[in-house]
């Protein structure tokens, strides 16, 4: 390894003198001379105050040179050694910092891992009172944005790069200009924020610049419930939901898994309310009313499929049931006909069930829904005594003006300077506002933006925004807890934060974001808080006392609600001539902010499993009436605006309702746009259809087939489980009566069919050949401890349990795994060839998707998710077929891959019944998506090796990848090797984390010899990210560990365990909790029914002599099989 420490150049020969008398005197001139010799930032050396800052800068900049990368055999490093080792810094040992990810009007508390100065993994902050350490999928992916080579890296004026100082001067000149006229002609356009510091600055600026205008715009406004509640309460409030306390839930177009604010918290609460410890437990029941098929609908026990525009009618009818004496409600209900095909009994029974659980139920309305629905929901939650129990209100900020108002004053020429803070209004503003043009009415547009995107083109001044991991800030989480946004590194490209820009425009004295936040904190913590309190705040990642603000006692104004209800318009039901368009937040790219994030683009949508695209989703009936099938390109027209996009038939979607995800169809052009990753992804931009009038639910749309078709890359082609007991599920009552049904479902349960068949101690058929794993055990004990410990550790045996009842399919685990394990993205073409690399995937099965299914089962399917990853079989089929011993078993029960040894026969994958192994068909880590098929034998190939260069210019035998590649490499986890082409890879159970925990424990144990890692010390990346706590990992040899306990649960079963692979990952069967009084209740979950019909088996009967409790599981079932 070549290390070149830069040092002041000296002549090698000649007499040695002091450099100058200045050196002796340590004059400023000399110091300046030294500074010039060093790279930028080295001058910090001479300033003892900011040595910490120096360390941050240096780590960032020498990491840019490729430092710390694994996978490169011999990186050439140019590093400056520490003159003085920073405290607590151990080279190669990662550090954790608490921070938070601001997300619209809320925030997610985080703990971020820093590897040698660069953030490499984002995790939830489990210390936070309203978090279990889980995150949503966006938080996981936001890390990649930090290292996005396409992010705004420069300050520009009229599109030309200027120095940072010039931009700061401009801010100062704005400040001076408007200080004189109290802000007349100055307008701010910002996105939602929960930052108390921003609120404080804004307040200060409103005082000094009273004439300035403040407006807010969110591409997808998730705060509708808050807006309506504020109107009803007469003060700015924001609702916060306690789903864990709700026994009955009703969601009205409210997709808490993927589309609403605070999804991680909501998922955690929901899963907690459904967790079954054993067959005596109780679980909550979810009713979902929705148009799109969402993950919330997947989790629902009863799902009502209605168009989004008809949800109001359902809500009104429900309201009329629950609050019959509310005149305005009854009036609305009477003039809103129920949508066709809806059984009134559904609503009546649902209302009855909710009413039977007063104070422990909750009704939730989605952000897309009109104010009337939110008003009904607020009223009904009051009627059901849910306010104060499951629905809490927290303080919020007063609303600012909206975009339409800003447009009108812009058009009136009242705006001289428009300051755009975040957001991308040119892309996301309602189409009728023609924002690019409207914005141009201001003399000067100054924008702080993360990308040089669509809005960039019209901005005179563009300042790069800092990523939240580079910036000081603060925020409030959903429950109102005050959290810090703490940087892990200095801004890579000198970006600014919103706080700094506001402070500078306001001409405030304090402009350093750190100081602004500290000041806010002092105010929060009461007076001038001590340094220790501040340190604790940063260490814990939240201010504990602030969460207590929750129990705001507000009263809702019935007359205000009545006026909202009376103003509500009733849309006619959609038909094939008059379609409904639902323009929705995408589960991957959000409102387009993650368009350039490869992890998100490649993440399969939880329902459609589409990657790298959006599609016009519609129901089977709608598709057949229009005469289109998957991939056909259609033209959707709404109010004279047209988009063209491919069709995707989505089982479970409401008829005559089209689902259009925003954030796609973006281009990268010379004047801005999305980055290279997002360029041209998706055929259409759904924002182009959205107007001020239509909102997110447009009615009266037309559709026409263009006759063309388009290739969509989906990661799962087959939706039916074919009657196979892969995901096992039952209704709650059946589970209570037959707790062991899950182990009574696959081929192993038929063993007892042959009378007199010899059985082993566990009640299973005696093997002709002994399971090698058992053979090791017995042989080990014969020979003595040595062999035993070599072959099988008696300290740790790792295993995992996944609760299918808890999993809601949010896919946070998939991205967490990708981030932790350096999993490459492969691109749309490779995904369409079934070569995606995710180590954990969510299998999605539709019941009734088989050809034999009845049409109503296809239209109203039950859907199940199953996280699938390497099962770490004890008797792994992959191991015995590998000709070179590249995949082997370790002493602790892990099925490990030796990448170095793998030659890539792919036999292991063929023999893996779960198909969880992933093969590097190309050098995914070295070549960009476009270069996959370019051979290094040809010219023009850019990559690690190029024949022509090697032949002609041997010194340049590898073409140097450009800076962008180097930047992207920084996201890699240094503890995990980067795989080259031609090798197989798969889930390792995060072996790097296991080893880290073992080392820590060994150090701690010292002479005591207690090397067993305590339960909970090893948390895999997927488990860590899971907001539902569905994944539990741990030591099976510790009988008290959570995983051991879960494996004793009667619901525990192994997928395909009849193969006697002995998977170390087992699943807890899914339990549904249907209401027997409902019209759509089914005797059994549809998949179970299909299994029972096609296999002629009934798991609730002890058939063929096998009984419940038999079969394979973590537990040796005592009841046996021979009866």
């Amino acid at each position: 390894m070549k290390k070149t420490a830069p040092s002041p150049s000296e002549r090698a020969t000649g007499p040695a003198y002091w450099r100058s008398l200045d050196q002796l005197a340590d004059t400023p001139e000399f110091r300046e001379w030294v500074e010039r010799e060093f790279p930028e930032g080295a001058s910090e050396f001479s300033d003892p105050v900011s040595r910490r800052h120096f360390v941050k800068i240096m780590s960032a900049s020498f990491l840019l040179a490729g430092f710390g990368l694994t996978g490169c055999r011999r990186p050439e490093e140019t590093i400056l050694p520490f003159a003085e080792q920073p405290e607590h810094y151990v080279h190669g040992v990662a550090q954790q910092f608490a921070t938070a990810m601001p997300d619209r009007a809320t925030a997610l508390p985080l703990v971020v891992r820093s590897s040698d100065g660069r953030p490499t993994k984002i995790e939830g902050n489990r210390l936070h009172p309203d978090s279990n350490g889980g995150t949503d999928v966006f938080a996981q992916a936001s890390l990649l944005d930090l290292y996005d080579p396409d992010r705004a890296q420069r300050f520009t004026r009229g599109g030309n790069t200027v120095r940072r100082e010039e931009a700061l001067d401009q801010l100062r000149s704005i400040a001076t200009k408007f200080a004189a006229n109290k802000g007349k002609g100055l307008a701010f356009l910002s996105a939602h924020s929960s930052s108390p510091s921003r609120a404080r600055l804004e307040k200060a600026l409103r005082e000094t610049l009273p004439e300035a205008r403040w407006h807010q715009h969110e591409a997808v406004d998730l705060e509708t419930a808050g807006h309506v509640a504020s109107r009803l309460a007469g003060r700015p409030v924001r609702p916060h939901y306690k789903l864990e306390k709700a026994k009955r839930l009703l969601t009205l177009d409210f997709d808490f898994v993927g589309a609403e604010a605070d999804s991680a918290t909501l998922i955690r609460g929901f899963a907690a309310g459904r967790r079954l410890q054993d067959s005596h437990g109780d679980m909550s029941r979810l009713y979902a009313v929705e148009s799109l098929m969402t993950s919330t609908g997947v989790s629902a026990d009863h799902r009502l499929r209605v168009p989004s525009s008809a949800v109001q009618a359902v809500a009104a009818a429900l309201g009329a049931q629950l609050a019959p004496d509310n005149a305005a409600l009854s009036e609305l209900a009477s003039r809103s006909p129920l949508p066709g095909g809806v059984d009134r009994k559904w609503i009546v029974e649902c209302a009855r069930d909710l009413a039977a659980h007063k104070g422990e139920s909750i009704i939730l309305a989605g952000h897309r829904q009109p104010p009337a629905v939110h008003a009904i929901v607020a009223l009904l939650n009051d009627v059901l005594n849910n306010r104060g129990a499951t629905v809490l209100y927290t303080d919020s900020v007063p609303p600012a003006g909206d975009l339409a108002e800003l447009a009108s004053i812009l058009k009136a020429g009242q705006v001289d300077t428009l300051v755009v803070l975040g957001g991308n209004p040119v892309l996301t503003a309602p189409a009728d506002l023609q924002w690019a043009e409207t914005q141009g009415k201001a003399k000067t547009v100054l924008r702080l933006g993360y990308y040089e995107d669509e809005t960039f083109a019209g901005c005179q001044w563009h300042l790069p925004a800092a990523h939240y991991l580079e910036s000081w800030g603060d925020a409030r989480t959903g429950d109102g807890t005050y959290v810090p946004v703490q940087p892990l590194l200095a801004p890579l490209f000198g970006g600014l934060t919103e706080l700094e820009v506001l402070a500078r425009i306001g001409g405030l004295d304090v402009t350093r974001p750190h100081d602004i936040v500290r000041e806010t904190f002092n105010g929060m913590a009461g007076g001038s808080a001590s340094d220790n309190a501040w340190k604790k705040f940063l260490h814990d990642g939240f201010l504990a006392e602030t969460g207590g603000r929750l129990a705001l006692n507000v009263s809702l104004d019935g007359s205000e609600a009545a006026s909202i209800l009376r103003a509500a318009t009733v849309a006619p039901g959609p038909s094939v001539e008059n379609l409904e368009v639902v323009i929705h937040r995408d589960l991957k790219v959000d409102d387009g902010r993650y368009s350039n994030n490869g992890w998100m683009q490649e993440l399969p949508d939880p329902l459609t499993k589409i990657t790298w695209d959006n599609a016009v989703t519609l129901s089977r009936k709608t598709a057949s009436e229009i005469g289109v099938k998957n991939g056909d390109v259609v033209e959707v027209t709404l109010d004279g605006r047209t988009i063209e996009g491919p069709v995707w038939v989505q089982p479970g979607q409401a008829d005559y309702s089209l689902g259009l995800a925003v954030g796609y169809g973006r281009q990268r052009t010379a004047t801005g746009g999305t980055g290279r990753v997002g360029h041209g992804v998706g055929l259409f931009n759904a924002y182009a259809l959205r107007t001020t009038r239509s909102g997110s639910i447009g009615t009266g749309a037309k559709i026409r087939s263009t006759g063309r078709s388009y290739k969509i890359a989906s990661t799962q082609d087959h939706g039916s489980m074919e009657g196979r007991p892969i995901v096992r599920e039952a209704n709650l009552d059946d589970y209570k009566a037959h707790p062991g049904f899950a182990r009574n479902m696959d081929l192993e349960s038929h063993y007892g069919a042959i009378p007199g068949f010899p059985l082993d101690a566990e009640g299973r058929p005696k093997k002709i050949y002994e399971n090698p794993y058992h053979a090791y055990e017995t042989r080990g004990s014969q020979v003595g401890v040595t062999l035993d410990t070599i072959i099988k550790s008696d300290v740790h045996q790792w295993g995992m349990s996944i609760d299918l009842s808890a999993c809601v399919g949010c896919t946070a685990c998939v991205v967490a795994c990708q981030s932790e394990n350096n999993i490459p993205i492969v691109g749309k073409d490779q995904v369409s060839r079934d070569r995606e690399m995710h180590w954990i995937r969510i299998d999605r099965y539709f019941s009734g998707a088989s050809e034999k299914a009845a049409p109503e089962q296809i239209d109203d399917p039950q859907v199940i998710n199953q996280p699938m990853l390497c099962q770490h079989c004890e008797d792994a089929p992959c191991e015995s077929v590998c000709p070179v011993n590249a995949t082997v078993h370790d002493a602790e029960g892990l099925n490990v891959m030796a990448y170095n040894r793998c030659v890539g026969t792919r036999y292991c994958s063929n023999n893996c019944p779960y198909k969880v192994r992933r093969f590097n068909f190309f050098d995914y880590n070295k070549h960009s998506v476009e270069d996959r098929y370019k051979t290094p034998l040809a010219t023009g190939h850019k990559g690690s090796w190029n024949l022509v260069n090697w032949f002609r210019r041997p010194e340049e035998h590898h073409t140097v990848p450009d800076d962008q590649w180097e930047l992207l490499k920084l996201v890699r986890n240094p503890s995990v090797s980067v795989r080259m082409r031609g090798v197989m890879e798969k889930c390792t159970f995060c072996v790097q984390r296991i080893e880290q925990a073992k080392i820590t424990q060994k150090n701690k144990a010292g002479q005591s010899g207690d090397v067993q890692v305590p339960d909970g010390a090893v948390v895999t990346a997927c488990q860590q990210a899971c907001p539902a706590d569905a994944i539990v990992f741990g030591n099976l040899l510790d009988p008290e560990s959570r995983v051991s306990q879960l494996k004793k649960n009667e619901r525990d079963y192994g997928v395909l365990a009849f193969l006697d692979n002995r998977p170390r990952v087992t699943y807890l069967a899914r339990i549904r909790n249907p209401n027997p009084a409902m019209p759509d209740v089914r005797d059994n979950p549809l998949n179970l029914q299909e299994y029972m019909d096609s296999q002629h088996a009934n798991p609730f009967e002890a058939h063929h002599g096998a009984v419940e409790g038999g079969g394979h599981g973590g537990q040796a079932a005592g009841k046996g099989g021979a009866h």
Partner: protein
Amino acid sequence: MASPATSLPAIPEVPRELERQPLVLNQRSLGWLSDHITAVIEGKTPKWWWATFLVSLSLLGIGTWCVAYLISTGVGVWGLMIPVGWAWDITNFVFWIGIGHAGTLISAILFLLRQKWRTSINRAAEAMTIFAVMCAGIFPLIHVGRVWLAWWLLPLPNANSIWPQFRSPLLWDVFAVSTYFTVSLLFWYMGLIPDLATMRDRAKTKIRKILYGLGALGWIGSNRHWSNYEKAYLLLAGLSTPLVLSVHSIVSFDFAVSQVPGWHTTIFPPYFVAGAIFSGFGMVLSLLVPLRTLCRLEDVITTRHVELMCKVVLATGSMVGYAYGMEFFIAWYSGNPYELYAFKNRAFGPYYWAYWTMVTCNVISPQFFWFKKIRRNMVLVFILSIFVNIGMWFERFVIIVTSLHRDYMPANWAYFRPTWVDIWTFVGTFGLFMTLFMLFMRFLPMIAIAEVKGVTPHADPHHPLGGAKEGGHH
């Protein structure tokens, strides 16, 4: 050179029913045999040879480029994916290995069974075997992700003390195929020695004399030479015989030892061997039927030879058909729904077209060989033999791809499509095969001259034409 027709001695009448049909027609003399067989080498290069050779060479060139592209860029240039981790690569491997079966079967097993008719076809069949095994060997080598490390499959002592995994059928493959190739090559070369000596003796140019002379290893045709030769030949035949059975059994273990439904079946070893013989004879027919006409060797490779081979094709084709049926029966009888699904899916799933192509070619087309008229019609035999080749390629494709594309977990199911690189790599191996075969037939005697002479009436001392009679010796 005396015309045999003019100097025929009178032969005592033998009752017609006792007369065996001679293996060389028209009572061709030994000299005629030498002259005619070597004429292919010594004569002027025919135009059809150049045409075939150049086409083959171009295909070989394309194939070589495809392999270079594959190795330099990644296995992804093929259509493989997860779940179908093997597709055309292993299909082609098994296909070529299967073809390589006929040669050794003809030379070894038929030799031990004293089937004298084998002498007219064994040389070409053995050459075909060797070239086919070479084509086959390419695929397991290049299909791995890191070709440059493929030598790790060999049990070589190394610094890391890591041995190959002896439980893996892929490793057994390495041993089985390399052994088979080595023994086949030795056997073939052994048989060539007397003929190479003939070529040496007939050579008119110095360079030929030297090269054939080197190959002939100083053969002078002495009694001692012949005696050693016969013993060695017998030994090698004995050694090769189990190999004929073992190679394809072991190749079938690649599938049978796994637990993929549709692969995990005990019927595979015998079924694969039958299929291999079937395809091998199919390929021998495809090659020799046109060649016997083109090289005017109808008197040596007679209609009877073709007929006998057709009968082998009929027998083995029927065995293969039986195996197809039995697989279905066992899948049903086992009561294993995964197994049953795999077989139903073969016949009626997305790859039904491949399955029914296979059944048509492998089960139905050989049944025409029940008819003597068809067996004796060279055009039809050639067409049917091509069907056999197509069918056997599809058999391997069906086994490999249809089993993998839908196995245990429906969420993984996918549909495999080949890329142009898949197709041209396969076509390229035909280029290699035909290039080698063209070179072989042009530069080496494609019929075992010495052995054919041994089965002519002239070589039989009890035959009126045999022994050291006047005019009988040349």
